[in-house]
């Protein structure tokens, strides 16, 4: 089996999601990595240092800078004939690009796998993770997105794979990048943070989120939110944890003022330790929490902040 992993990166750094995808890939066979970007040499070098990687294929062109699916998918299609499996992290980039690849080679994609059973068989969540389906693919090439929280990150250092440059046309002429507004934060990324503190509808206003940020800064945590808090306009969508947002599985997840709708649980129930703070003792979040505190968050959160200062 030979596996192609599509690198997740921002042209400067290889993202940790790639390391988890490599782990899934190594369970299937030998792994090569494809890096598509612009001035992405440092990313290709980082990919080459992952132990177990055979080679890194790099396509470096201005049209590939912003990860447009219309431009990147045809490049991956050209590579597919040499591989039995093509894997990408189930990030917004992976989800955007890989189905386009799958359709171009007439293959059914297997989305967000959480387990590799064998070369043809995979486990994936359906219905917001309320059921797990074991599916077997009859396609010659498997196109797969990987739920990164389900696979340990591969080591980032220790390998010394070669880097090959690919050339060819890179502008499909269908789409153009205009602009981006990325959330700038000093805190860790939500999907790779060891601790996440999330707020829900109970926060009442975006003005109250600094309370959570204060705790986050004391714990080195990322700040997330439930869909209710995002829909209410408290925080932007990239904070959203759940079925339609991000899936996280940190060491510690602190849910503040979150009732625990199944769609939210879908995004965080694999966290190692879950803490829930909610004034409603009947809130469903307490059924999955390791430690529950039935209290008004506007009392409990400042108290938590003060308690963390005591050593």
């Amino acid at each position: 089996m030979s596996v192609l992993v599509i690198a997740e990166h921002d042209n400067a750094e290889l993202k940790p999601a790639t390391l988890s995808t490599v782990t899934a890939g190594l369970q299937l066979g030998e792994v090569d990595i494809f890096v598509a970007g612009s001035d992405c040499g440092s990313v290709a070098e980082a990919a080459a240092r992952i132990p177990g990687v055979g080679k890194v294929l790099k396509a470096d062109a201005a049209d590939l800078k912003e990860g447009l699916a219309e431009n990147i998918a045809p490049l991956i299609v050209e590579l597919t004939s040499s591989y039995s499996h093509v894997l990408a992290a189930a990030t917004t980039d992976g989800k955007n690009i890989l189905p386009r690849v799958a359709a171009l080679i007439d293959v059914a994609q297997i989305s967000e796998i959480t387990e590799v059973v064998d070369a043809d068989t995979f486990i994936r969540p359906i219905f917001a993770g309320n059921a797990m389906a074991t599916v077997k693919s009859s396609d010659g090439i498997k196109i797969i997105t990987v739920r990164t929280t389900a696979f340990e990150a591969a080591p980032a250092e220790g390998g010394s794979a070669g880097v090959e440059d690919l050339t060819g046309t890179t502008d499909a002429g269908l789409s153009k990048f205009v602009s981006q507004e990325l959330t700038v934060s000093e805190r860790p990324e939500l999907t790779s943070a060891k601790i996440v503190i999330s707020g829900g509808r109970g926060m009442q206003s975006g003005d109250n989120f600094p309370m959570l940020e204060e705790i986050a800064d004391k714990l080195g945590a990322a700040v997330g939110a439930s869909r209710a808090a995002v829909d209410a306009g408290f925080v932007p969508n990239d904070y959203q944890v759940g079925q339609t947002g991000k899936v996280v599985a940190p060491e510690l997840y602190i849910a503040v003022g979150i009732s625990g709708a199944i769609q939210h649980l879908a995004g965080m129930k694999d966290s190692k330790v879950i803490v829930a703070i909610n004034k409603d003792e009947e809130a469903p979040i307490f059924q999955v929490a390791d430690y529950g505190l039935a209290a008004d968050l506007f009392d409990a959160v400042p108290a938590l902040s003060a308690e963390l200062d005591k050593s």
Partner: protein
Amino acid sequence: MKVLVGVKRVVDYNVKIRVNSEQTAVETANVKMSMNPFDEIAVEEGIRLKEAGIADELIAVSVGPTQSQETIRTALAMGADRGILVETDVMTEPLAVAKCLKALIEKEAPDLVIVGKQAIDDDANQTGQMLAALMGWSQGTFASNLELNDGTLKVTREVDGGLQTVDLKMPAIVTTDLRLNEPRYASLPNIMKAKKKPIDVTNPDELGVDVSPRLTVLKVEEPPKRQAGVMVEDVAQLVDKLRNEAKVI
């Protein structure tokens, strides 16, 4: 401009699903079914384009069993002009749905196709991207805003790090994210009016599409249950437990 939207009949958002006793599927008998919430957003966006005078016809398409007519009827009650059902009892995969939609696009020649970013049953998040690939069209996935000027569609996309805006060459495929709009409820008069709107019924054979699944579902299981933990008295006890018992801070 003609707009086509895809609507899928799924187990209602609020239903707590159960795996059947044979562990082969999720129980759907006697369960409330509704339009996939992301597809409601697609229909709403199509209606708004009509109301803005940009679109002149809105067609709602569903691929699924006979009962999917109800889902199309909901789209008609919201404001779509007519419906097309591609009738099949096969549990169609996104690739098969994309092929059916492609066949319909070749007949109907829409300028814009809007579908939900994912269906809340299989959570695949594939159909729109696959359709764009099969058509050789541009794709604006996870859209939170659309703006049409001079044959270019400006799409704001919700990406992991924030927002990305792209210009798409038309015709284009858009997949909806939650913040694109808030779908309306159909009013009673519109529900009555929708009963008179036409729904054409075709099937994959007529369209020349092979919808046989490529994936075999070997087993469907409940995920491992998380045991409820303990309630703590106060914040001091909570911090103590996190420090000394769970050792996570």
